[in-house]
């Protein structure tokens, strides 16, 4: 066969494969969007085509105080958890990277090994512990396991970042009269923007989407986070499929927006730990 023809044929095959995969991965999102503007009757008759006229009832059903409450709860838990994860992980990573102390290697290994621990192993102890201090059905209590389970990966990423900051910068700061805390807050943190944002995005996605701990710990409807809320909404609206599709779409909107605004950050954030490991 003519080599040029062969190459073109190969390219056509690659494009065709890409298009098929694009339909498989992307079409569900288009489907969510299209059908969120149909009512149940129209959905039953025709699920494929565009809505004959735009119906906003599903959005009305979703944008009610109860559902927005789940948003607020998730935002609260994620904000508190991410802030504390970044704070405590960057502190201990600084100690690992820049302060040599007895047992630092053992402690580092002990924390990194945490990446291998299945969350489910500690589900019952977490539940009994938080129940015993009356924090089991509370959003603050939920932050506890969220913080602890995101520490290993965050420490892993941040320690590497801090290690790469050259010693000369530190030494210059010491000569200028900077103490250890000053070095941490005025030098290490500002110079590690990329690492800190990676950890922020990663832990945000983790906590925003977390299910099993929330499912065990939270009972009160008013305290449910978004994943629990979507399940509850599904339970109430089983006969109204477009409304459920709308709830899924609206509930995922923050992450979808974040992805389109800062795609590289999200992709890096989700995969950095795995690649570097």
């Amino acid at each position, binding site marked *: 066969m003519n080599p040029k023809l062969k190459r073109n044929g190969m390219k056509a095959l*690659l494009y065709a494969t890409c298009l098929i995969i694009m339909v498989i991965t992307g079409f569900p999102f288009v489907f969510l969007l299209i059908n969120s503007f149909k009512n149940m009757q129209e959905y039953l008759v025709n*699920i494929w085509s565009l809505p004959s006229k735009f119906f906003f009832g599903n959005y009305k059903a979703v944008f009610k105080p109860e559902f927005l409450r789940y948003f607020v709860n998730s935002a609260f838990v994620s904000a508190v958890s991410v802030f504390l994860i970044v704070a405590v992980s960057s502190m201990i990573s*600084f100690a690992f990277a820049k302060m040599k102390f007895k047992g630092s290697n053992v*402690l580092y290994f002990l924390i990194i090994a945490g990446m291998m621990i299945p969350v489910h192993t*500690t589900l*019952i102890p977490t539940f009994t512990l938080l129940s015993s201090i009356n924090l089991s059905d509370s959003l603050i209590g939920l932050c506890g396991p969220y913080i602890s389970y995101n520490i*290993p990966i965050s*420490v892993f990423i941040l320690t590497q970042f801090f290690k790469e900051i050259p010693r000369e910068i530190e030494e210059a700061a010491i000569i200028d009269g900077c103490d250890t805390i000053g070095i941490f807050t005025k030098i290490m943190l500002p110079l590690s923007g990329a690492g800190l944002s990676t950890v922020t995005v990663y832990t945000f996605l983790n906590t925003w989407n977390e299910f099993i701990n929330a499912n065990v710990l939270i009972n009160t409807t008013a305290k449910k986070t978004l994943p629990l809320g979507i399940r509850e909404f*599904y339970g109430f609206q089983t006969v109204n499929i477009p409304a459920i599709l709308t709830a899924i779409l609206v509930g995922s909107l923050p992450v979808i927006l974040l992805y389109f605004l800062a795609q590289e950050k999200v992709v890096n954030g989700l995969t950095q730990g795995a690649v570097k490991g």
Partner: protein
Amino acid sequence: MEKRKAASNDRWKKTGLVILFVFPALFFYGTFNLLGIARTFYYSTMNWKGISANKSFIGLANYIAVAQDLNFWNALKNNMILVAVSMFIQMPGALLLALLINSKIRFTKFFRTVFFMPMLLSTVATGIMWILFYDPNFGLLAKLVKALHIPISTAFLQGNTALPSILMVICWQFIPYYMIIFKAGLTNVPEELYEAARIDGANSWQCFINITMPLLIPTIRTSAVLQLVGSLKYFDLFYVMMGGAPNANTELMATYMYKKGFTEFQMGYASTIAAYMFIICFAFACIFLYFTSRKGEEA
């Protein structure tokens, strides 16, 4: 004298600083992770029905009971199917997609953007969306099957079909994730190597086998460990898609632990299942890392 005092002051100050920086993270990690594991093993030796506060020490009786529990073995079998699917379908699939978006065609950035989208939905959202897609009457797939006159049952989440149906959703969700990891690994392969090989007359397949694969081994190894542990501890989609009550066809170790602990309130027994999960995950990861690192040295 003065000097020694200053030095000792310095040391105390340094110790104080170390504690200041280390303590907060260690507090959370110690309370929930380290103490959590210790308490799981402690509970696992107890006869403890969760509603009453009474527990009594029964040694390894729970361990023996779980080892003789056919439901547990069945769950472990399903976990193993999940491991196999992740190793032999997800990983090759992800590698293929990574090669696709790494190939010299146009719009690869756009394709990558769309390919990655399944990772953006939470597992609960994914699960419920697919329950609706799998709906035997009104679902997307049922309509597709009817439109194309494919002679299969549309009861996708019933009986024996439930497991493969859920496994397909897991592939849908996770192949893009590993695609990105492999893509990052491919980007790190220096272009000069391919140029040199092509000058030596190597074709694409030879380049792939002799350059791409060997350089990708570390990435594959990390992903495989993540997949292995991830599949052994998996919970979310099975729980959500089976409406919170997986049956024998779809029970996993984690869902069985959840059922025993939080619906039947057999906390001691459930803790033993959790302890077994911990041991199994750890053992599998260690064995895997041990064998792959030896192979890596030979290559």
